[in-house]
């Protein structure tokens, strides 16, 4: 046998060896963590919850407490945040899905449409949560999740560049120009194709053009768009004017907006709490305030609520509900979750406690006046068309902004019926 042949055989051997090691890893891991039935010999059973890795450490202590109190093991499976909802929808029907997941409330419509979540009974604990959080997790009159945190946009003002607060868009732009900074105001865009309906929504809302009309029950009517007509047209015209005045720029991505703000190139930045860490790191003096209105009404941002929802095929609904309603809903745990993720807690008591952090208090105050992001399944197609129309206007390609806007609304209305 030649050297090389021997070497190649050796390599194949190595390959098999590596796979052998893998099987050893896989085997031991799967027996310890992914087959709960085997380890759940404590008697009261096991429930499985999918969480993302940011939340996992805090929930671990809650799970340990639960195990101590009632004997049920909570198996926390850490998953990639973006995979939780799609995998849940696929896996629940096979009977192998988890008992509960963490999710953002705007996915509720899709989850309900697929029959994979069960309504929860919060009992008399409903009023322990902020109204907006409960409203967000209510879909077709039923509550499908225990909310734990809220997040929303606000205006971050560089107090050195702009010493006084502003109350309207025009005043903000004027103050911004006066400051001599490179950009009067920064609003980040997701991409040049889709603008950023989320970041621009507060301004749209100030023109009284909500995405969906609010029904008599206070919930969104997922079949009737509210952003058409004269209100929508005036927002579209306003957008076009900003493009001409170069106050809004489609090419300023979220990254560029953040980098520019933390390097002191603008006094005003429309942003969520997620950029605060970097702003603090660069020692920018800042204040968090309500977003100034561009139109006649208040500029209310969307509020996103995170929470826990239960599988419709959970084999242990009793323990699952007890854990997510009584433990995750608990003010102490919500406060700990806040400490881990720095989002205002949904539980009122925990929120009051978290308010000692002035940033949280400020964001919470802005969010309390906001509206939940719509959860109707039709939302997915709305985001795309909506963003495309904004992008067409903001890139200056639309000769008649109001017509572009109305065309988008008419098209969407036909799609969502």
């Amino acid at each position: 046998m030649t050297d090389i042949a021997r070497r190649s055989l050796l390599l194949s051997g190595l390959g098999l060896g590596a796979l052998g090691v893998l099987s050893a890893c896989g085997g031991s891991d799967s027996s310890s963590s992914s087959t709960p039935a085997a380890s759940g010999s404590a008697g009261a059973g096991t429930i499985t919850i999918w969480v993302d890795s940011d939340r996992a450490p805090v929930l671990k202590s809650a799970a340990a407490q639960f195990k101590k109190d009632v004997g049920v093991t909570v198996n926390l499976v850490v998953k990639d945040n973006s995979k939780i909802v799609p995998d849940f929808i696929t896996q629940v029907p096979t009977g192998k899905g988890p008992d509960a997941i963490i999710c953002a409330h705007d996915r509720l419509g899709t989850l309900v449409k697929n029959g994979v979540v069960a309504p929860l009974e919060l009992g008399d604990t409903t009023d322990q949560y902020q109204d907006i959080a409960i409203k967000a997790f209510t879909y077709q009159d039923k509550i499908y999740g225990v909310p734990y945190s809220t997040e929303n946009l606000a205006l971050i003002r560089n107090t050195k560049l702009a010493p006084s607060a502003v109350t309207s868009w025009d005043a903000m732009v004027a103050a911004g120009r006066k400051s001599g900074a490179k950009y009067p105001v920064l609003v980040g865009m997701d991409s040049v194709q889709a603008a950023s309906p989320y970041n621009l929504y507060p301004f749209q809302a100030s023109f009284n053009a909500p995405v969906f009309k609010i029904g008599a029950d206070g919930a969104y009517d997922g079949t009737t768009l509210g952003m058409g007509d004269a209100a929508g047209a005036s927002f579209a015209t306003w957008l076009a004017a900003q493009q001409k005045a170069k106050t809004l720029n489609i090419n300023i991505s979220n990254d560029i907006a953040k980098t520019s703000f933390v390097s002191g190139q603008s006094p005003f930045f429309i942003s969520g709490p997620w950029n605060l860490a970097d702003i603090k790191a660069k020692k920018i003096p800042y204040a968090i305030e309500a977003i100034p209105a561009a139109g006649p009404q208040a500029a209310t941002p969307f509020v996103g609520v995170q929470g826990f929802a239960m599988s419709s095929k959970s084999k242990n609904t009793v323990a699952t509900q007890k854990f997510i309603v009584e433990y995750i809903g608990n003010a102490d745990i919500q406060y700990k979750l806040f400490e881990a993720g720095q989002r205002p807690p949904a539980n009122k008591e925990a929120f009051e406690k978290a308010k000692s952090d002035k940033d949280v208090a400020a964001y919470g105050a802005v969010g309390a006046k906001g509206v939940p992001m719509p959860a109707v399944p039709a939302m997915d197609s709305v985001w795309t068309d909506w963003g495309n129309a904004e992008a067409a206007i903001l890139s200056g390609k639309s000769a008649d902004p109001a017509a572009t806007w109305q065309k988008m609304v008419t098209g969407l209305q036909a799609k969502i019926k």
Partner: protein
Amino acid sequence: MTKEDFTPPAQREERVHRAQVRFSGGAWSWVIKIVLLGGFDALMVLGLLAAVAKASWVIVAVIAVGTIAVNLIYLPPNRELPGKYLAPGVAFMLIFSVSVMLYTVYVGFTNYGDGHNGSKDDAVLAIQQNNQARVPDSATYKAAVATKNGGGDELWLIVVDPKTGQARAGNNETPLQDASGVTTSSLGAITGADGYTVLDFAAVSTRSSEVSKLAVPLSDKGADGFLHTTTGSQAYVYRSTMAYDEKADTFTDTTGTVYRDSGQGSFVSADGKTIQPGWKVNVGFSNFTAAITNSQVRGPFLKVLVWTFVFAIGSVVSCFALGLILALIFNDSRLRGRRWFRLVMILPYAFPATMMTMVWSGLFNQDFGFINQVLLGGLQVPWLNDGSWAKVAILVVNLWLGFPYQFLVATGALQSLPDDVNEAAEVDGASGWSAFWYIKFPLLMVSLAPLLISTFAFNFNNFNLIYMLTRGGPRFTDTSLDIGSTDILISMVYKVAFGDQGRQYGLGSAFAILIFIIVGVISWIGFRQTRALEDIN
């Protein structure tokens, strides 16, 4: 030609070696073969037993057929030679690759997707769950789950009426009746009642599925609603707004409207109202007819198809040309630092494509990107904002992502060229360029052409790049659809199948099959051409 031609000088060693082959090779190879086959068979029998125990008959059948096939292939010496060489790869391919294909084909004939996600039983369960509403402003009952002494294993619910303080008990069949002797813990939890044994939480938890079905009627009249506990310690009054009749297989709501199984995977009322969720059923060819007759797709179809070909062919040609040129350059031993140059060449391949696509989108930013700002000295080329420029940008990014693969493959292929090719060229007096173009290149193409076809097919379906870089935009203004100048076929059908109506796997699969037919036919024609190429050589 004789064997001496390649027999190295060490003749003696060779002869000894040959003798070894003759005398030991046969026997030893038999031993090895039997041991390996025996081990394999033993594993398969274990698997078979496990599968029988779990009653997974499909797996039983696959294991049985597979084991027999492997033994038939490997046991007889010097027979079934192709099988012996093909079996390992083909086995994995059949189990893990072809099955995915078949599943896609199967889904193409169903309505699987959002709203039709699981089985009918799941749907009925979910509808029932979704339509049990707690009576507004009704009180909370303190509750406990119990068994009746002497009443077997059946679960009962004991509650304390919040208005009267009276203890009551009942189960699914027995409406609430008075109970006595209720004891409570210091925290107020019910711990016992005369004639009942209260279950602790662990017991409630293990019997959770029964507890969740426990619905105790408040009275004989169903309209009063029923008590239901979610956590075992509290109960609430519910009313069902949608009653399921198992025999008739219908739902009836509070207004008396009857919803029937439409045969299309959902319950539908006479006036066409549908209850969510539905379930998965076979729908025959309707996904295919929907795919072909889809009016949304038809309008921009031609434009998209042309760009798909331009993109796929353009990517293949540009990546291959660059890869080959670089391979040739770095094959020249006079060049110093070739090892390091080569290492740099594969850097783009070693980083995750998704991340790098994002970086590129930043580089192409019209106002702030490196390309406009630095390379082009402040020019305002609307790279991603304009249809034509966006196409150029996509081709550049794909060149960056794709040339290292071609470089590697071409570097390898250059080694397979026999040295006499160079000499032949020399004899013919061909210059460097024409030696390459007329002699080496055709030879290289014999082994590389099939790979180029496969690269073509890959790019034909290169959804990720398009979606990450431009999402298909900038959007066409003459259609209400989310389709734009850089959409290729696969991204267009993705938007149609997974856009407005949620994820329609059935329709998506039908599209996938149709696209596969298109790519398959083109590639098949391509392969026939390469075969011709091979014959010429």
